[in-house]
């Protein structure tokens, strides 16, 4: 929202697209600054490697610079950027041979239809109420409870691994987990997750 003032230099999205086409320096700086963080975060969750993610987003912008004259963006600029990062990520994944474990079993479809976060899904999630609610609910948990929840649920650690990593007993981990799950279940009823 704070970026609105910068945006005012381009009265509307068509003007911004035109400015990009013509290679206006400030237009590129503007789209870079307003989208970099989200695009990086998105690429990082596909690539799971910070270097690759940084390089992916940067090279996406460079590519857009290279082809600026030929650009004809029908959709929103934002959705174009997410799609570009997505495509670029896939070529990096292929280069890294990270898909081999799917492809050798004929499961590449599974990866593309279920596992990878599509640009549309990412934009939907970013704008969604669900996302806000998840963050609020998690933040409402006591600190240690939250840490244990994230380690086990998101990081995939077992209770005993979490216990060792935090230097606490497995019992504590179990207790904290059930507190976390109980509270989250109340707040996020519509997720069958818990």
């Amino acid at each position, binding site marked *: 929202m704070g970026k609105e003032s910068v945006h005012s230099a381009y009265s509307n999205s068509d003007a911004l697209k035109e400015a990009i086409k013509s290679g206006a*320096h400030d237009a*590129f*700086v503007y789209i*870079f*600054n307003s989208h*970099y*963080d989200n695009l*990086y*975060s998105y690429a*990082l*969750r596909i*690539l*799971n490697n910070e*270097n690759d993610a*940084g*390089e992916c*987003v*940067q*090279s*996406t*912008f*460079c*590519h857009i*610079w*290279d082809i600026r004259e030929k650009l004809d963006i029908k959709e929103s600029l934002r959705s174009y950027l997410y799609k570009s990062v997505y495509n*670029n990520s896939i070529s990096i994944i292929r280069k890294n*041979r*990270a898909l081999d*474990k*799917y492809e*050798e*079993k004929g*499961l590449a479809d*599974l990866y593309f239809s*279920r*596992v990878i*976060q599509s640009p549309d899904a*990412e934009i939907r*999630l970013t704008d969604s109420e*669900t*996302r806000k609610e*998840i*963050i609020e609910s*998690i933040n409402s948990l006591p600190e240690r409870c939250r840490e244990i929840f*994230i380690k*086990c*649920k*998101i*990081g*995939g*650690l*077992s*209770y005993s691994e979490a216990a060792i990593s935090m230097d606490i007993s497995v019992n504590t981990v*179990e207790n904290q*987990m059930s507190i976390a799950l109980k509270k989250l279940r109340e707040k996020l009823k519509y*997720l*069958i*997750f818990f």
Partner: protein
Amino acid sequence: MYKESKKSIDSLLSGILSGKAGSSEVEQFAEWIKDSQNERYFEDYKQIWHTLNSAPAGEQMRDRSLESFLNYIDSSRRRQRFRRRALYWASSAATLIIMAGLYMLLWVYESGGDHNKLAFSKLRYNTDTIKVELSDGSVVNPLRVKTSTSLLSDLIPNEKGKEQESRELNYLNRIKSKTDSSDTLKYNAVTIPPGERFVVVLSDGTKVYLHSGSYLRYPVSFGSTSRDVTLDGRAYFDVSKSKVPFIVTTEDMKVEVLGTSFDVEAKKSALKSSVILINGSVKVHIQGISRIINPDEMFSFNREIRQGSVTTVDSKAMTQWKDGILALREISFNDMLECLSNWYGVDIVNRSSVSEGERFYGKFDRENIEAAIKTVALNAKVRYRIEKGRLIIVDYK
């Protein structure tokens, strides 16, 4: 029991989304998700995972990235100008052939998508400049010398204010000043750092193309009885015909000609020195023995076993470097990287396990390090990354 099973599912899903899952876990996941209830669970899990894993890039990272991006914009403008000029000299394609066992692989690199260029802008190029040491001991950069400044008494550069951008130093039109006496020759020496090349036209009209990482010492004006120069490194000589013999002295040999074109590679630190003849004939003096070399022959001297040998080569192809194309043949991976490092003026660190037995053949355009490295990576099946300005070559996995 319930908790344990949930836990192992979460751990499986976490592994799937974070890319850490191995192929047996991928199979397990494929089986598990066939159940529609599980599929819904996964969709929910995925939302939470993506929400809670959204790590912001951090201001420092964004700023650094923006800076590189802006550099890229600037350098792409420069590159466009540069590329047009480069095309004039050589096709912008790098080719590399590897022979590995029985099969042979040929790959012609085409510079198509440019969007990975960026990483290459982070390479740290050699910053040493070409240096000319004058007879009074002072050292100048010939590329910076404005022709109007007659700061150089030795040097009367290309007449009429022609720009030195041509990377050439011309002594041809040098008029001997009265103070010159015929028996005390004044010497200049030029040092070419990695990544650079340079041409010197000597006072007799002989044109010397100097390879990256070379040193040549020569008289500002040749005397009437001999034409002597000293070389460390590699140079291609186009010698003007004259009755006065032209002699190139290196660490361990003397190459004597009357008028011809030839290539001398004699780096003090290298294991091998060689002479390649394009036309005419040359005489190589080494270890008290003289040897005549014919066109399309290469004389190589192995310093370790102190033995020389003559082989037939395609001399034109082997000396294309003078026109900006480095041709390598039957060279090991490490030697190739060393050549490329010198040619492009960048540090290359080899951390791969490419066998020393493999032999590489390739041609590399001076202007396009990116195409070169990509071609090498593809053919040698290695990956590369840029770390602190250096190019690091690593194994694929």
